[in-house]
């Protein structure tokens, strides 16, 4: 079985700042893969490399057996055209920390936009699916509201529905609950838990240790651009081996 995401020695720098210093990891299909670590450790950057929002500088990164951003012929790498990158992104859903809903569209229009514009789906089909997805995230009564009329938790659930509308095989979550009021976090995590139960492959950057322990199948602790420790969430969170992991967990738990 090919890994859904496979990283081998992935490096990334922004100018002089070396953010990722050789990341190796593998995400199996249907797995919930959690990335934890202090801010600035590079976990969000790595997530953004997976759908090529950031270009990696060295190493190999592939999704579902295909290189991200490049095509290999013989021993030469060819950069993909923008349109080819876009084509690959269709299969990868992404949820952002700050939701990034389109503010000039209603909730349902947000969910319908990509299937219509990218896949050329008919309005009726897109609307039917959008209604189903909004129902699934518990927001069927908010379909006609603009994002500014929704709470943070509701916006994030619309954002999840928007990503799901493209029927991705992989979902990336970039600290999806970090910008939310504590009492709204639960609703979003419930939706994510449901997704996990349905067998969606998910890579989740999070500070929600409870969620990681309960729902996660694998967990990686990153610090300063490297993977410090990895394993099953229960093991890493309850019995960390490295000093750095121990001190981080003692502060957040």
């Amino acid at each position, binding site marked *: 079985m090919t890994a859904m995401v496979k990283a081998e020695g992935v490096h990334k720098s922004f100018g002089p700042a070396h953010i990722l210093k050789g990341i190796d990891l593998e995400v199996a299909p249907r797995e919930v893969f959690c990335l934890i670590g202090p801010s600035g450790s590079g976990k969000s950057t790595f997530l953004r490399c997976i759908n090529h929002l950031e270009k990696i500088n060295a190493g190999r990164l592939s999704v579902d057996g295909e290189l991200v951003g490049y095509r290999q012929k013989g021993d030469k790498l060819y950069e993909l055209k923008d349109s080819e990158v876009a084509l690959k992104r269709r299969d990868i*859903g992404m949820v952002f920390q700050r939701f990034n809903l389109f503010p000039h569209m209603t909730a349902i229009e947000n969910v319908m936009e990509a299937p219509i514009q990218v896949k050329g789906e008919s309005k009726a089909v897109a609307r039917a699916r959008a209604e189903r997805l909004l129902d699934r995230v518990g927001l069927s009564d908010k379909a006609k509201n603009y994002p500014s009329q929704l709470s943070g938790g509701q916006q994030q659930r619309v954002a999840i529905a928007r990503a799901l509308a493209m029927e991705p095989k992989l979902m990336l979550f970039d600290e999806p609950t970090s910008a939310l009021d504590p009492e709204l976090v639960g609703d979003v995590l419930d939706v994510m838990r449901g997704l996990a139960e349905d067998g969606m492959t998910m890579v989740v950057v999070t500070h929600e240790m409870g969620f990681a322990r309960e729902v996660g199948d694998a967990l990686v602790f990153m610090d300063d651009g490297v993977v410090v420790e990895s394993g099953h969430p229960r093991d890493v969170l309850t019995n960390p081996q490295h000093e750095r992991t121990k001190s981080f967990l003692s502060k957040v738990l």
Partner: protein
Amino acid sequence: MTGDRAPKGTPVTDIKKAGPAATPLTPPTGPEAIQAIPVRHYGRYVSAVVALGLLASLVYAFAQGDINWGAIPDYFFDDQILEGVKNTVVITVLAMLIGVVLGIVLAVMRLSKNPVTSAIAWGYIWFFRGTPVYVQLLVWFNLGIVFEYINLGPIYKDEWSSFMTPFLCALLGLGLNEAAYMAEICRAGLQSVDEGQTEAAHALGMSHNKTLRRIVVPQAMRVIVPPTGNEVINMLKTSSLAVAVQYTELLRSTQNVSQTSGATVEMLFLAAAWYMVLTSLLSIGQYYLERYYARGSSRSLPDTPFQKIRATMLSLGRPKGGAA
């Protein structure tokens, strides 16, 4: 435990007793309003009197002048004047159209990663913003001195004088100058849209063009429309400079009338009145356009003036409630 509760219980029953007795005295909306003597702003009375006095003396001064006020309504809908109004509107609309289209192209060029297109756009804006539009109009008008023919190869060939009509001079002069300003307005608008929007669209698999057209531009419009409205109003007034290139717009037609009627100052007043009518109409249009692009940016859209008037009428019709 019980000892703690007893003293707390007593005041509660007191409040309950006081409740029904107090209610009839205060309006149902809340507690009794504060009755205080307001501060007297004597300075405001003084400044109001001074301002009104100055205004009255201004009106008096103009009333003393030998002005034939009747000439203004007489000529307001004169055929020559209406022709001028029409030409002013036409040149404003067309020059603005050139300005907006070319402005968008220049803005996209300036923001592009291609250094050549970006530099050309920068140079265009530098040149056309750096020279007065009046000078530009005169240059277009006088180019005939250095060019005898216009020769666009197989497409078009003509004598310069019959090609470069006053209308074309005015259109090119005003439109090309406007494009430089519109380019900067559009650039500011495009840059004002949060980068997260582009990222979200790209993450969904949308192409650059689709992202620009469906996501970025509609949001940039909220920033672009208000200054563009200003530009239209500005253009309407600046079009009066087309007098310099013999184009018969509103100002020139009023001057033509004043030569035959002898009412010079009156005709200038008439021109001013027409400009004010046109700019007022544009302001109304701008209000509704801004309201359209504001959707989603605030929780509820602002009322239209009509809705505001209706709301005021309704609240006036209702008696101002409460016992107070």
